[in-house]
């Protein structure tokens, strides 16, 4: 179908979170990512799907990997990519964002990829622009493309996500990755368990998460993958746990625990970047069942799928 076709009522304009996606939509996105990934092993990695479209990246929070991943994804779809540089110091409030959006509206941007430290800003932007908005992470709220790449990656190695178990370890409370990733796994039939200090586990967890308080208990649950969250060291001033040392001892992936993971054949995942010696030991970086690098590679494929999906005429049929 030609690009620029009017969006059908069933098609989405924006990708803001996982919560609002149907299973069919998620499946469509994951399936669409498969042929895109196959491109990567060719000498010409580009397809013309988004030729003539403009993608703008608007990152209000520092990021290297997500930003590059989106840029590469857009390039491989033949879109024109521009980075709208915003200095975090000069921009703090939503109203300046709306001013920016007004400007972008005049520039006829087709896609806005946005990251912001405040939850809900992509939703606000989406309401005020005709462009498709892709949330590249907002506050503690959502990081939908991270969730998609996580699901894609685990499915790639396990074949099927139904009945699988994933243990998420760390700061669930302040993690948009944890929210979106646990949502996508649950939607795809994967059980999600969590582990971490009580101060960093949401109090409402009973509604949807199984919580473990130590590794013994968690390992006995026989997870297929352990997903380590990054410990946000800057939060330590609020004292959610007594010390980094204690965190590492209680919840970190130590050499000993890594050995047990290896024995049990458990996959290791991490959204990156890692804090060595905090949530993860050095040896884990070379772990044979680490999916960390694969997650990065797949990130490009699912972001291509997301951009493609939001293009009028490409959306998931029948949703």
């Amino acid at each position, binding site marked *: 179908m030609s690009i620029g076709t009017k969006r059908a009522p069933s098609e989405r304009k924006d990708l803001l979170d996982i919560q609002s996606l149907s299973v069919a939509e998620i499946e469509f996105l994951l399936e669409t990512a498969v042929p895109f990934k196959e491109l990567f092993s060719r000498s010409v990695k580009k397809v013309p799907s988004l030729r003539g479209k403009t993608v703008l990246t608007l990152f209000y929070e520092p990021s290297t990997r997500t930003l590059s991943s989106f840029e590469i994804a857009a390039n491989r779809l033949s879109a024109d990519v521009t980075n709208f540089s915003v200095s975090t110091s000069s921009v703090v409030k*939503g109203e300046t964002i709306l001013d920016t959006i007004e400007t972008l509206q005049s520039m006829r941007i087709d896609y806005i990829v946005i990251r912001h430290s405040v*939850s809900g800003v992509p939703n606000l932007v989406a309401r005020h622009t005709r462009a498709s908005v892709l949330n590249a992470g907002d*506050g503690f709220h959502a990081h939908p493309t991270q969730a998609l790449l996580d699901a894609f990656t685990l499915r790639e190695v396990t074949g099927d996500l139904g009945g699988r178990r994933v243990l998420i370890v760390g700061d669930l409370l302040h993690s948009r990755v944890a929210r979106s990733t646990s949502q996508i796994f649950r939607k795809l039939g994967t059980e999600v368990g969590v582990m971490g200090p009580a101060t960093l586990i949401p109090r409402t967890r009973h509604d949807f998460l199984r919580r473990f308080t130590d590794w013994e208990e968690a390992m006995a649950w026989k997870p297929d993958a352990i997903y380590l969250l990054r410990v946000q060291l800057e939060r330590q001033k609020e004292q959610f746990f007594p010390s980094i040392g204690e965190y590492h001892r209680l919840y970190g992936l130590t050499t000993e625990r890594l050995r047990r993971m290896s024995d049990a054949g458990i996959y290791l995942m991490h959204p990156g970047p890692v804090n060595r010696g905090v949530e993860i030991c050095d040896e884990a970086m070379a772990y044979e069942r680490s999916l960390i690098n694969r997650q990065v590679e797949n990130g490009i494929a699912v972001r291509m799928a997301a951009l493609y999906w939001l293009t009028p005429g490409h959306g998931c049929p029948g949703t």
Partner: protein
Amino acid sequence: MGALERKPLPTMITEPPTALLFQGGQIAGEDSPRLETADVLVQGDRIVRVGPGLQGPPGTRFLDCRGCIVMPSMFDVHVHAREPGREDKETIATCSEAAINGGVTGMVLMPNTTPAIDSGSLVQSVLDTAREKARIAVWQTGCITKGRLGQELAAIAGMKAKGVPMITDDGNPVSNANVLRRAMEYALDFDLPLASHCETMELSHGGAMNEGRMSYQLGIPGIPACSEEICLSRDLRLAQFTGAHVHIQHVSSARGMETIRRFKNEGVRVTCEVAPHHLLFHDGDIGDYDTHYKMNPPLRTPEDNESLLEGLIEGVFDVIATDHAPHTEFEKKYDFVNAPFGITGLETALVSLYHHFVKTGKFGWDLVVKRYSAEPRRVIKLDPVPVREGGVAEFIVFDPARKTRFTKAFMRSKSSNTPFLDQELDGMVACVVRNGEVLLER
């Protein structure tokens, strides 16, 4: 033409004021849910007759009130008029017009303006403005502490001399318990109630909505209900200890309300208020980060809504007060975390209470009159204004058969930050009378 050659002023014609006859309305009062059909004859600033088939003197204006409720006008003890300092949001003049639009003819202003009202002269300046610009009765409260900073006592005696009915640091709690204790003891001699905005700042810091499942889902920092409950318990215990009269503002949580009930039973001098939005909305209504549902204390859960409504019916709450908090559209368009707390309420309160509760049979007009007209006046030691012979003519006519659409054009407030914006509800304030003068008629 020279300055001295002014045109003479027209000679004052001393005509008796026109009598007004409100015919066939159903009169509501605070003591009984029964409505009595009667005519109401007003002459001067007084209600001179109430009864069936009344005739007025020659020249009487007749107002057809058949099918309408005639009841004492509303009185709001919790209003932010934003003057001085933020006249872009509201002024005393626009706030007074908004009040009339909602059937309210008396309001008590909070002192969290810029500058904060913490001295007699500042109180006086607000009251001077009100005398000139407002068509309703305006009362100004004073701060408990200087600049609302929670440290040094404000000029309580000076403010009392200018007529403050209450002192409060509303917007903030007095975080230091010892400062609050001294303020309570000191205020006793001036017979001033202390109005408490109950919040434990260490627990709510950075929060923008109720802490719970919804805040987790939206990724918005939460304000736990215990932030209110802990401060509320502290304030009631201090009131018990000092003997002061504490008025608990905008109670949002069921547990907070239960604490008040317990202390009331123990004889502590406490009154309290509930805002219509805490009865009607919950944190799930925030939906897609709608800042029209952002206020402090935040909207809690549907269970809290239900408990607060029961509490209102059972009489735990002395008054309904709106916490009318105007903000510019521009500011409310910030992202949810940075947008200011608060919604307007004066124009929507009565109609929304009718639409959601009276019409549905949850409570009668007597409760509305008692909690939003009579008791609020009593809290600041005023007499209520029942519709009866010899009483002051301060009442409204409410038409249940008409509808109100809360468009920006309808609103008299400078701001329209309300969840009711562009909604149509049943009922309309058709006429507002104060001191015998018709302030609104439609």
